[in-house]
């Protein structure tokens, strides 16, 4: 039987009704991986034996009468920058190619406790630095909608495997758009929660003041389910907030009449493809048609978010990545004469070009004599960007923008021009800088490639985002449209 096309909530119903077992579901996913992974290349590691063992254990518990929770026995994929005890966690970097952490990230512990079955670790841009997954130290992931194109990044592997039905859902991480942009490129739902909502403990740090873990799912209800599972305060993360976590599924399938939809003009006048502009414009109109109220906004600092981001992010990264020296773990250059040489050779051969570039940029921005002009200036601009959002949210409930200025581009197209690549994040970065929650959901197609709509919410108001996204999804039913490669069946139907 082919169950791989199921959504989480669909699979849960079948497991709960004892119609399928977790083992059957997991095997089906393994078959699917066998079939399409040769095209997608979404996984760095597939933990087949581990997954099947866990699935059988879950089935046994259920057979013994344990009532399956919403995630019991559900196969999922984990981005390879989230630590999983004794299982390879590489960040798609050669420098961590052999790293098996002696501990698990809090999010992974939570998923395990709720019975999720991890089937593998997904490919990404090395250390999450990139927007195409071409910066993986191992191989490039393909977009299931067109394998000649990129899946976006850095959570390209997570997005691609969900789009290709190689997992029921995945966890990604988002620093400047790394969940939302690949979700947009792959036609899936990608949610970046409010900074502080989900524990970062065990997420391999890239830019600590921006990083946040979130779900990549096949629809909005699944997204709400996963948020329920991963949100919440963690005493191991000092930046984790103890705000109430509502049941996010309560916001699914609700009326959005009277919801105020902020539309900032800056997002539609910056460098953006006309076709993407048109699709997102229509999305706004559609939302208005089902009762939302459109509010025009001005957010004058929007354009400054990206340059500020490209100082803060590399600065923090340069410090976070200094620990990779080949002494305690990871790749090491073996023939060094002395320590200094060992440091340099290990780091130079272990890191790829984009990582080196950001380390260089960040080191420069923090170095003596430049700190105030670069890092401090960027932090001040960050305050202005946050102020922009504060102002905007006085007049609206959510803000709606395109997720990315283009649809997926061809592999190799932008890889040699870092700045061009950075511009992919132009609409997602301001949100990250302000630490706000936002989702990307499919809102249409351009030449057969998905376009994403970004819905941004107030701090800790993920619920309203879910509400709007769910209403929008119900209207267009784009969650039913899937990439047409290989054969698949809609399981359970």
């Amino acid at each position, binding site marked *: 039987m082919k169950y791989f096309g199921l959504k989480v909530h669909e699979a849960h119903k079948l497991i709960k009704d004892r119609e399928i077992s977790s083992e059957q579901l997991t095997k089906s996913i393994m078959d699917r991986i066998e079939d399409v992974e040769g095209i997608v290349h979404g996984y760095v590691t597939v933990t087949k034996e581990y997954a099947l063992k866990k699935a059988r254990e879950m089935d046994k518990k259920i057979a013994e009468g344990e009532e399956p929770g919403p995630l019991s026995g559900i196969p999922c994929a984990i981005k390879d*920058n*989230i*630590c999983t005890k004794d299982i390879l*966690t590489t*960040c798609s970097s050669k420098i*961590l190619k052999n*790293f098996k*952490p*002696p*501990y698990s*990230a809090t999010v992974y512990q939570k998923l395990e406790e709720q019975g999720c079955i991890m089937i593998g670790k997904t490919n990404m841009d090395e250390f999450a630095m990139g927007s195409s997954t071409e910066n993986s130290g191992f191989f490039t992931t393909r977009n299931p909608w067109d394998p000649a194109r990129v899946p976006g990044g850095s959570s390209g592997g997570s997005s691609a495997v969900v789009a290709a039905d190689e997992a029921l859902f995945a966890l990604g991480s988002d620093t400047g758009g790394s969940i939302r942009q690949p979700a947009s490129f792959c036609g899936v739902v990608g949610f970046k929660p409010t900074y502080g909502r989900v524990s*970062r*403990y*065990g*997420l*391999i*740090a890239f*830019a*600590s*003041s921006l990083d946040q873990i979130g779900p990549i799912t096949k629809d909005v209800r699944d997204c709400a389910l996963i948020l329920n599972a991963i949100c919440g305060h963690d*005493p*191991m*993360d*000092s*930046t984790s907030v103890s705000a109430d976590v509502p049941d996010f599924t309560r916001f699914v399938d609700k009326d959005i009449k009277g919801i105020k939809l902020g539309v900032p003009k800056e997002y539609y006048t910056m460098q953006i493809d006309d076709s993407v502009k048109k699709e997102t414009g229509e999305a706004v109109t559609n939302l208005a048609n089902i009762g939302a109220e459109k509010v025009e906004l001005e957010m004058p600092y929007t354009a400054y978010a990206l340059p500020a981001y490209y100082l803060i992010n590399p*600065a*923090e990264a*340069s*410090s976070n990545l*200094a*620990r*990779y*020296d080949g*002494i*305690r*773990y990871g790749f090491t250059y073996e023939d060094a004469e002395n*320590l200094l040489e060992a*440091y340099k050779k290990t780091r130079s051969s272990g890191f790829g070009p984009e990582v080196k570039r950001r380390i260089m940029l960040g*080191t420069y921005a*923090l*170095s*003596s004599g430049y*700190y105030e002009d670069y*890092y401090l200036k960027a932090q001040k601009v960050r305050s202005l960007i946050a102020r922009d959002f504060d102002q905007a949210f006085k007049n609206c409930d959510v803000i709606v923008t395109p997720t990315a200025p283009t649809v997926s581009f061809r592999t190799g197209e932008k890889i040699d021009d870092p700045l061009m690549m950075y511009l992919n994040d132009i609409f997602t970065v301001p949100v990250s800088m302000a630490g706000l929650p936002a989702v990307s959901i499919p809102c249409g197609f351009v030449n057969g490639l998905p376009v994403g709509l970004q819905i941004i919410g107030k701090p800790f108001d993920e619920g309203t985002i879910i509400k709007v996204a769910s209403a929008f999804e119900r209207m267009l039913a784009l969650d039913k449209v899937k990439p047409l490669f290989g054969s698949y069946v809609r399981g359970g139907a």
Partner: protein
Amino acid sequence: MSYEVVIGLEVHVELLTKSKIFCSCPTSFGDEPNTNVCPVCLGLPGVLPVINKRAVEFAILSGLALNCKVNPRSKFDRKNYFYPDLPKAYQISQYDMPVAEDGYLNIKVNGETKCIGITRVHLEEDAGKLIHAENGDYSLIDYNRTGVPLVEIVSEPDLRSHEEARVFLENLKRILQYTQVSDCKMEEGSLRCDANISVRLKGKKELGTKTELKNMNSFKAVQKGLEYEIKRQIDSLEKGERISQETLRWDEGRGLTVSMRSKEQAHDYRYFPDPDLMPLEVQQEWVEKLKGLLPEMPLQKKERYITQYGLPEYDAEVLTFSMDMADFFEDCVKEYPEPKVVSNWVMGELMGFLNAERIDITETKVTPLNLAKLLHLIDKGTISGKIGKTVFEEMFKSGEDPEAIVEEKGLLQISDTKELEKIVDEVIKINPGPVEDLKSGKKKAMGFLVGQVMKQTKGKANPQIVNKILRNRLK
């Protein structure tokens, strides 16, 4: 030409918390390598720090003990540099907003009191320990110490000699020990001291070029290192050479300072606020509560001992050297309100034995109550002062109650006049020579005769009574 020495100290002190500053590993010293570590202090990918509240309180207490202003807001920064003992390749420290600033410490050198400014007190994490192989081919790392909380205390450049620096350091150590934030054991590395040193011609306003001196691992090393470096700088200036700004290491074995790096090679630490740690906000209420925990400081205690107990300055100084010693003294005085007598016994007998055995006051079996009992026994004439010392020695060895010892060993003083008259008569009988001497006015003979009585009684005879009987008999 006459030179003036300018010294400022940077002192690192390990705080006496149970667990490390950012994780829950133990801070114990001397365990097997890499056994007190966890993913957090090993700096494994993905881990995050969470600050130990007690470490913050100890830092505040240190600041208060040094008369500092506690900052209502402070924050943690990353100090970035590569070294194998630093697993994250950055040290979490405090750059521009330390826990406390602007304090002072009074020291007394050559009878004069001098106020030494404390620039700041900040919190940071300790690094691991590097052991270099003898052949120099490789090094080994133990991360047990990584993440042990430290306060760094920076003094103003107010010290004018190596002597002042030593006294400052001693006072600082005593204050921190009093405050119970650190054991300040230099030999275990829980107190470490670096110095900034420069010299200038007397009367000049501007400072000379300074050098930073590291690796002075004992009080002796501080003294010798500073002495050497001051002389080196003066000699250079005398020869018309310039001092270059550099970091030096004190080489204890060779007894000289060695250059580690020049100004050009100085680290660029690229400090920035640690995004993983939230700022500290220290409300006045919290400060007041901690202030309430501060003990009386050594100098105040000393003054009080002089005024309240009428002790000589020397006694007050010695007794307040450690809080445990001072507590012992005062506990004893409560039971036996003759401060000078207690002081004599504590400084003479007790310290004598402690030094001989090389143990600390906290390790002695003698209790203040027992010492007081002993002194009462002497006062009551139950035993003589001389026997008292014997009893004390036994108390020191066994920790037993003095009354029990006196009883057990039959050391009761003989004050029974009849019994003593018998012994005195016996002594007179067998010592006709000295008796004659005494009668003919040779006072010395009296001592001899008393001594003979003491000998007969094994020291237990009450000397006053013996004297009286002798005088009566030989009138």
